[in-house]
């Protein structure tokens, strides 16, 4: 999402004739994808915190607005305000990084130095207010948007090469999950889907579950054990890492996207799936509900309730979307989440802040 954010900011700045620089702590300059942002606007710090801090303070001493993309940069935010008190420092609050107790420095930054908190979802905004007593007027919700460079489909047939790759046919009902499969992040809920598939395979003998995303070896063993335990060896396909250029085709291949996660700040993957005309099921206890526009675009469920998950999957599988309906779903999703819309909101937010 940072790429879309950078792309939007670059175009807003160009339009408004502002100077815009993007600093990235963890990336290097080789990570820059120049279609999003020209190299002259970008610096990657290759994990060098001190260099990032010094460069940020130097740049911010003449800046009007600084946007911190993570709460962990609070100290830099405080330093900027002390050196350049007129500068407005904004924070983007994503998800779990702010849904937890914060250190004294972070709290101080939020309370005294942060002008606005850009929350990626209403859920995150609520968390900011409940957990950190953030001023509601300071918290602005700005939902994430579809990547402007994602290849959006104009036809919705299942790609033949992927049917071949996974040994599938048009008679298969395909459920798809794309997420990072990390042993340290066991809240994504795909184990619930594996369990559900185990129960559903009798009623839906052609059901297949494609579980994609980079995994570590510990998690791979855990997932394979789960697959054995629920006897879904023939139903579950673990693909591992997916290349960006095959992402859209996987959304087209599937009949339903399911990620019953508990800790999505927003869940950009839901919006990407919807933008390819793929219906989604998400969790109801995190930021995902914004991505499905509170039920208008998809269905949210209690992720701990296995039968609710199963029933919802059954509903979708019994009423598969026609190609025309997939087109409609794509259109509706883009109505809310295309980059143009995002850029307008971001520009308004920045204009308001500058004028404040």
């Amino acid at each position: 999402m940072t790429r879309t954010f950078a792309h939007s900011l670059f175009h807003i700045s160009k339009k408004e004739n502002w100077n815009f620089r993007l600093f990235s702590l963890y990336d290097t300059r080789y990570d820059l994808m120049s279609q999003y942002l020209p190299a002259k606007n970008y610096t990657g710090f290759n994990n060098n915190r001190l260099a990032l801090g010094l460069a940020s303070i130097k740049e911010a001493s003449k800046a009007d607005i600084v946007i911190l993309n993570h709460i962990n940069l609070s100290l830099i935010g405080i330093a900027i305000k002390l050196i350049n008190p007129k500068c407005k420092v904004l924070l983007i609050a994503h998800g779990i990084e702010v849904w937890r107790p914060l250190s004294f420095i972070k709290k101080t930054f939020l309370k005294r130095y942060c002008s606005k908190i850009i929350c990626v979802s209403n859920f995150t905004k609520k968390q900011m207010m409940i957990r950190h007593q953030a001023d509601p007027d300071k918290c602005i919700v700005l939902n994430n948007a579809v990547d402007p460079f994602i290849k959006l489909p104009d036809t919705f047939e299942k790609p033949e090469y992927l049917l071949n790759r996974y040994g599938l046919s048009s008679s298969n009902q395909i459920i798809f999950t794309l997420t990072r499969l990390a042993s340290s992040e066991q809240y994504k809920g795909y184990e619930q889907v594996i369990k559900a598939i185990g129960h559903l395979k009798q009623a839906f003998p052609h059901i297949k579950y494609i579980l994609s995303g980079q995994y570590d070896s510990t998690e791979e063993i855990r997932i394979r054990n789960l697959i054995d335990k629920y006897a879904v060896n023939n139903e579950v396909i673990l693909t591992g890492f997916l290349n960006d250029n095959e992402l859209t085709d996987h959304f087209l291949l599937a009949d339903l996207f399911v990620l019953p996660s508990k800790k999505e700040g927003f869940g950009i993957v839901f919006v990407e799936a919807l933008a390819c005309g793929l219906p989604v099921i998400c969790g109801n206890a995190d930021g995902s509900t914004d991505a499905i526009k509170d039920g208008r675009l998809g269905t949210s469920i209690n992720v701990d309730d296995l039968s609710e998950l199963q029933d919802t999957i059954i509903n979708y599988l019994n009423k598969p979307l026609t190609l025309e309906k997939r087109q409609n779903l794509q259109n509706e999703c883009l109505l809310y989440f295309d980059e143009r819309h995002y850029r307008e909101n971001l520009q308004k937010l920045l204009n308001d802040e500058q004028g404040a």
Partner: protein
Amino acid sequence: MCRIAGIISNSSVEFDRNEKVKRMCQLLKHGGPDDEGIFNDTAAGVTFGHRRLSIIDLSPKGHQPMTDVQQKVWITFNGEIYNYLELKKQLFGLGARFASNTDTEVILSAYIFWGIAAFSKLRGIFAFALYDKEKSLTYLVRDSSGIKPLYYYAQNGQLCFASEVKALKEAGLASEPDPDWQIRFLAYGHIPEPYTTLKNVRSLPKGEFLCWNHKKGTCNIHSYHIIRDKAYIDNLDQAKEAIKTTLGYAVNRQLIADAPIGVFLSGGIDSSLITLLASREKKAQLKTISIYFNEKAYDESMYQSLILKQIDGEKFTHLVKQSDFEGFLPQIIDDMDLPTTDGINSWCISKFAHDDGLKAVLSGLGADELFGGYPSFNRIRYIKSAKKYPVSLFKLANYSAFDAYKKIAFLTYNHPIADYLFLRGLYSPADISQILDADITEVEDVLFANRQLPYIDNYNEQDAAWFEINLYMQNQLLRDTDVMGMSHGLEVRVPFLDEDFVKLTESIDSRIRFDKTRPKKLLIDSFTDILPEQIWNRTKMGFTFPLQDWMRENQEITNDSLYRGRKSKNIIKAFKNNNVHWSKAFALFQIQMHA
């Protein structure tokens, strides 16, 4: 076997297309000395060319480009399909009929019956172009281990392809040099896939197919690899048994040939094992080719004799001397196609195999990468430890008085390619910028930007295997082996890279697969019944030539007045004093040749 070329273009004139494809075929003649064929579809703007090296079905029925009975599909094919008889049987059951005994016809039939699902059923070494007349589509397809090469140039609604880059260049289809090739070459010691020396001429990734849409004049590239539930072996005995069976099967099916076939025997574990396994099948018909040197430090003839004593069949051994190297070098450089610091050994042994009457040989390539036979499998741990230290520390390596330590500067970059280059690279970015008189940021950008790579963070043996298989073996060993073999009309087959054997190896628990007691312990233990202890319990030499001495004796390579720039001249002077490795001098030599 063979070399292929072609052009697809709606805008070009048939005569022009035909002439260019013929020209490409002429340039590729060395890899296909037995026959030539051209196919034209005037209306569709398709021209395919083929140079044939006959190995299976030596009759004229194997002439290519080939079509099916109904002339719906056309193919120009380079390689071998080892399971073609199994597929043929299956297709026969489905109603297919065949006019020849070739594997080429089986690919055509498989496509007609199974569509693109056919690609993943093929086991072998292959690169082909397949034109589907009804669908107005052309597929370029490459084998899953990237053993056979295929280069393409897709620009302005036109697709050109060839087995070697020089064909595209010399036929005038793509001539603009890639401005960055020298940077890549000096860093890697070769040009890494998908890049070449020509701008926008790319290598088709292994295990992938390019689909060219004739109507739109555009293409998509996708993997045809089939995802199957991965088997997992964590039992040592089961692993050994499976290795024994699967490798034996791979060797047997790769011995299929109607022309004379042999084995490269260096005297190391891998080639000895392949020789012994092949000998069980071919017995007295198996021919072996070995090289030996007067320089004792490089001579493996004692180990070769140990194996040769155990087998029947004709045994060819060749002494290679400094004077041979001097005589061969100009031709070796001419045959390289793309600059490389390796391949001299492959060129020589391929020449001898060809001169001894062989058309195909088996090689032990691939075992080191699959079973942890290289020092990089241990060294990779240092990278993980090094990441804990400030990167500025590693920048000091640029000032090292010892040339070998300069590569430590790669640890400055938090990038998988830099990690690989720390293990396998030639020159550091600072050296490259001085040699080429380029800005260091430009060098860094060329090396590290815009590459989508898997996330490497464990720095264990599996990650080392990923580097070795996908970078070193793919870009250097396999490319050099193919191009040097084909320059003598010799097909080199690699049983360790048989798709089923690779899959089996990857399914073995890494604690068993990379047993730390001894490099390649699992492979050795699987074959202790046939592999003599003197072969596996010896110091690894690799298939290397005494090139440090030979190149230092070479008047041209060591003539520092040939080189431009003070840095290059100094490196050559240091090389003469034996303070620089020959591969660095050889790389500079090739750079100055292109200047």
